[in-house]
């Protein structure tokens, strides 16, 4: 099974709009997915510039997919889709 790569943006906009909630993301992963998911904290992914002015942070990437206004439930939903659950 392929690894699902989660990138949590640590850029200023994401930080101000609540990225630190994801420090608990690992605790929320279902047991069936825990070994398949790899969580990374990254420097600014630059997505705030791409979606500039729309105030969509925090951004999280699940593989190639961007989750805007990310929250733990929305990231988990995206992980499940990617895992084919």
């Amino acid at each position: 099974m392929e690894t699902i790569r989660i990138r949590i943006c640590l850029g200023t906009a994401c930080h101000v709009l609540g990225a630190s909630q994801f420090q608990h993301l690992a605790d929320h992963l279902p047991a069936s997915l825990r070994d398949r998911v790899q969580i990374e904290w990254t420097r600014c992914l630059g997505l705030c510039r791409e979606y500039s002015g729309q105030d969509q942070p925090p951004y999280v990437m699940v593989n190639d997919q961007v989750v805007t206004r990310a929250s733990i439930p929305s990231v988990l939903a995206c992980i499940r889709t990617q895992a084919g659950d």
Partner: protein
Amino acid sequence: MTHDNNAVRIKREVLIRIARLFLQGRLLEEIDRIPLAMHPRDRQPTRCCIYKGRALAKYRCMASLGFAAEQEEDELTPLSDYARRALDGQPRVKAPSPLTVLETACSACVSSRYFATDACRNCTARSCHTSCPADAIAFDQGRAVIDPEKCRNCGRCLQACPFHAIIRVPIPCEEACPVGAVMKDQHGRVKIDMHKCISCGKCIQECPFGAVMETSEMLPVLNAIGSERPVVAMLAPAVVGQFPVPFGKLITAIRRLGFDQVVEVADGAHETARREAAELQERLAEGQLFMTSSCCPAYVDAVRKHIPDLLPYVSHTPTPMHLTAEQVTREQPGAVRVFLGPCVAKRAEARQDPLVDHVITFEELGALFVAAGIEVDECEEADLSADAGLQAGRGFPVSGGVTAAVRQQLPADADCTTMLLDGLNKKSLNLLKVYSRGKCPVNFIEVMACEGGCLAGPCALETPGRAQKRLDELRARVCTSHPSP
């Protein structure tokens, strides 16, 4: 509540949008669109409907412009009108309280705190009923019902029920207030008694509806930055771990916002510790039994308003903010002095202090970065001073840090016992009341209104745990790389 939630997010989003419009020079033209942009028709409403969301966003904008929601005279006054007045420097009435209540945001949480739930078995014993001193419990459709008009909130029914069918529903703002300043009006909506309020900001943090806000000073600061006068940023020691970057980068980022000079209040904190240690020795020599710290403004206000007998025991040493402002004023007369911190009560303190012009919170600082498009991590790392005194002052924002810094200043053989009151609550206030009668088991008490210290302040951006980790790292790193003499 957890640190990151939607109420906090909305508050910060409003600040970002206002700062951005200001920086783009379009504040007056576009501010009235903010409520619409934040609550578009196609997004699911968080309250009853998008229109309520928009109405609330308008009040949040008012607070972010520096106006209290209570200052509204005509509901039809557009935000652009408030913005114009804010740009003219108008809301700078030195309001006694930095807090404002958004009455329409308050959900009027039920006043009766005890509820009989579906778990009620309609038992024969009915011990809830027999234990109730107010005859507030009736039985209807096979279950207990508590009459909120009669209930006295004694909680005996809760203890009596063997099925745990009765629950206590707390009112978060009331529960959070350590001094009983939060009350309800006849409609059940929140009211803050400003004669009791100590501006600790715990109600801001705890209200799940974001119904209490602080009136922002972001706009006057942006105005000052655009003016001829030099603007000095005085950074509270709690700033160190607020962003996930090395502290030196944060200093550069703050300069890039347009502050002409950035100074650390840790410097003033060191001076506070030095003077406080001297004052303590003096007082003990004069026969006084004990002294308490005075750097936490919410605590000092609590003493003034609720435990006046303790006032003689509170240190007279000025706060780190004041001492830093004094130095800035000496070196740069005419500069605009802005304190940056995690604290609402500091705003109240600054409004009484002629040496401090404005206070902005870390949340507002973050909003300014986002609005200005400054990526803190991409800023160059400024050199940090490794001055030993500064290093000691950097420890102030963590509970116990003041005591540690004061101890360092006392002679090694000084016979001095200390105590930490970490967080103001009913219990610690009662303890202080007992000590105010002149009896205290220790010589020095450090009091912090926020549990954990300033790092846990109501307007901090980072969780206290992470912020402390970064602060510890900085203090260790700067110590080892530049050994102090």
